[in-house]
């Protein structure tokens, strides 16, 4: 390839030119790419049903953590509503609202919310809100808070196993807790926090408050029947 200007002292009649060599390499690379792409496509379709099934199961499990099954008798995974990016929920992407109904009557909403101002980026959560405006539960689904410090918002990592931090939202509503009280105690509100990690709970409290307000203002539309 690179040695075209060096006199060729080996008499090899079919010494390939640079162009021929390049074409050969490119074709071999293409063959490898096609082969591995096909192999990956095959594995993808082979594993897809199992992955979809476990994703649905996992979704139901995480919904189950915020919303007890007693609240609904409909299929939550089909009675959904696609929301565009809702700024009030901190979302910059489409999200799904799960609508729980009991005997046809709206009973609760499960919405996704994002606290954009965590200590280490965004904190994603699921918030379950009853039709009467009471909070049923909050669970953090994704965060990058400091391990061992800010990660107590996740009940699995919370050292307080009897009453994990995240459970204090249960049963609260906008009526019960005034706007000024939706803060951690350090800021004059009513929510506990762990000393040394205030940014994280502050962000979560704020996001939950906003989600409650959003659900309150849009309840009728969110429950309206046009599924999917």
């Amino acid at each position: 390839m690179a040695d075209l200007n060096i006199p060729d002292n080996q008499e090899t009649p079919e010494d390939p030119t640079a162009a021929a060599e390049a074409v050969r390499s490119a074709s071999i690379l293409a063959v490898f790419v096609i082969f591995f792409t096909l192999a990956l496509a095959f594995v993808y379709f082979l594993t897809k049903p199992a992955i979809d099934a476990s994703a649905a199961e996992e979704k139901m499990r995480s919904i189950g953590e915020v919303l007890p099954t007693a609240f609904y008798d409909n299929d939550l995974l089909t009675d959904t509503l696609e929301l565009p990016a809702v700024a009030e929920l901190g979302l910059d992407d489409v999200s799904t609202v799960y609508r729980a109904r009991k005997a046809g009557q709206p009973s609760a909403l499960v919405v996704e919310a994002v606290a954009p101002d965590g200590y280490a980026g965004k904190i994603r959560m699921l918030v379950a809100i009853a039709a009467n405006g009471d909070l049923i539960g909050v669970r953090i689904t994704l965060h990058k808070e400091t391990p061992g410090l800010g990660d107590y918002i996740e009940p699995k990592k919370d050292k307080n196993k009897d009453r994990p931090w995240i459970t204090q939202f249960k049963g609260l509503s906008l009526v019960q807790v005034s706007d000024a009280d939706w803060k951690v105690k350090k800021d004059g509100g009513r929510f506990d926090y762990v000393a040394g990690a205030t940014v994280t709970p502050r962000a979560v409290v704020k996001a939950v408050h906003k989600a409650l307000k959003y659900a309150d203002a849009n309840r009728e539309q969110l429950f309206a029947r046009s599924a999917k």
Partner: protein
Amino acid sequence: MITLPEIKQISLNGVWTQNSSLVQILGMCPLLAITTSMVNGVSLSIATLVVMALSNFFVACLRNYIPHEIRIPVFILIAAAVVTVVDLGMNAYLHDLYLVLGIFIPLIITNCLVLGRIEVFAAKNSPVGAALDGAMMGIGMVWTLGLLGGIREFIGTGSLFGGIDLVIPSLQPLQILPADYPGFLIGILPPGAFIVLGCFVAWRNWVVARAAARENLPIPAPLATGGCH
């Protein structure tokens, strides 16, 4: 095929002489990010072990068909395909383990060690030897990252085996220091990884130097070669 001395040589190489973290200083990115606990360190190492053994094996099988000039893209292609297959396979059939390790698996391809072993070993050796080399490099990672994670976890949180219940549900983390130990945070933050790893590399060099001195061999220069994110 492969002879017994070769097996011994490859194994010793992976676990100690050419230990990826302590001698080659490869794969620092996952090392710093993951070794906040022993369970995380060991889990990622085992996943890397599987990927390295498989990609080494496939590269060694195909080594005679890969032109020298385009070997790097082909190696990356093979390693990335293996990572993706492991990722999909674990997601589908070992879902609970996947929930714990899932985020680490795609990161394996960014580990220089994978490409490094393919280039240095798999491209020149038989498939069985190459697979063994990948696996032994992985074992070297398992004990190094496990110990590193354990030390950092102990300093940072005063407990060990945090998160083991996610991998083996019947086991519980072990609280070693009293529960009111406030935690020495530097242990689990990235600087702690550098400090502990530095001590670890020094310890290894000391062991090697002492072994050489005992046999009256010239003391080898302290080793920390390579280096890559």
